[in-house]
């Protein structure tokens, strides 16, 4: 199941629910780290309904991203098929001034 988002632990209170302030790209929310007792300030955690459910493995993430890059540039004009043809519209967007 589903909606869980990575955020970075900013501070941790020493209460029963191990409440922490976690930053998500510009906002902070109070999150319980009760389920991830080894999470520390600075760690990234995956948060679902106000609880961290795992500590994000940053090395694994970097490896994943490296794997994607290794697949090559993936040319959109590849002859094996189109990738999402837009409906006909010949206008180009104005270049940013």
């Amino acid at each position, binding site marked *: 199941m589903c909606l869980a988002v990575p955020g970075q632990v900013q501070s941790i209170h020493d209460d029963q629910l191990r409440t922490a302030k976690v930053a998500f790209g510009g906002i902070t929310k109070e999150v319980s780290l009760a389920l991830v007792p080894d999470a520390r300030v600075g760690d990234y955690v995956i948060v679902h309904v*106000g609880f961290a459910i795992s500590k994000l493995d940053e090395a694994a*993430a970097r490896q994943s991203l490296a794997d994607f890059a290794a697949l090559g540039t*993936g040319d959109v004009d590849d002859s094996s098929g189109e990738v999402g043809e837009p409906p006909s519209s010949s206008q180009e967007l104005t270049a940013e001034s």
Partner: protein
Amino acid sequence: MKYVSEFRDEKAAVGLATEIRRRVSRPWTIMEVCGGQTHAIVRFGLEAFWPPDLEVVHGPGCPVCVTPIELIDQAIQLAARPEVILCSFGDMLRVPGSRGDLFGVKAAGGDVRIVYSPLDALAVAQAHPDREVVCFAVGFETTAPAYATAVVQAKRLGLANWSLLVAHVLVPPAMEAILSAPENRVQGFLAAGHVCTVVGFEEYEDLVSQYRVPIVVTGFEPVDILEGVLLLVRQLEEGRAEVENQYTRSVRRQGNVEARRVVQEVFEVVPRTWRGIGEIPRSGLRLRPPYTEFDALLRFPLKSPHCGFLGQPGSECQSGLVLQGRLKPPDCPAFGTRCTPENPLGAPMVSSEGACAAYYRYRRT
């Protein structure tokens, strides 16, 4: 946003898509079992990347859609009681029961509040000691640990005015139900990455050896899904049937040990009826002693729920087939005409994660 944007990168997506196209040499049917994955597929238009021979169907992965009608009716009854504050996740509010939905109860004067977390509902109970706070506890294994922790906290606090209407469902039994159905055409699964974050994927090893179907534990960003599909396609093309983990940054084989512990402490496994599918053994949760005091069904006298029918009587809703991956929403005769988000015939058109609503909202031209 870190660890989000990188997994929505166009170059990575196109690279993976090209590789999928290269590997698929014959028709395959695979299923993704999570509303969040359905949502991502349609929101990011990933169907453009599937080669013609690859069919990706959507499964019963939206807990909102599969919550049985009886439980919704019970939630409505509870919300209508003057002393009750019913706390619910937003997506449950529009799901139809047998007569109306939680939004309707709110309009009629029931105190229904949207919460983000079970902890918010605990706070409401502490702030309103004269009222009874009931949480509509919906969700898969991902959400159960949050509620379990909240129950333990409630007991610690001696909170007497807080209870749960438990509607949790478990995913692997549903996958097995689909695999064991005689008409099953699903040849591989993308397993729900956040469910597996909690429970790990040891359980899938039995499924794989019994049914010889590859399963890839997959994340929720578009690039995760593309990689998951690639790994599945590779297994199918190579004749392998194994459990593989795509979502390595969050999922470990044993899952989250502490989360599993607290769920086992607070809940026990029971049979559960899945809306559109029917009863699946050992697929639901119920509070166990010494936490049964928090069970709303034991605390409040509720009219006995009517049993069993899977949709509105006489409705042409085919959500059962959609949830089992046997009918694609656009192929349903009522899709987009008699059944729309404004006038839904069934749950998958109501929840924004339901396959029907996702297809409707994000349809390509």
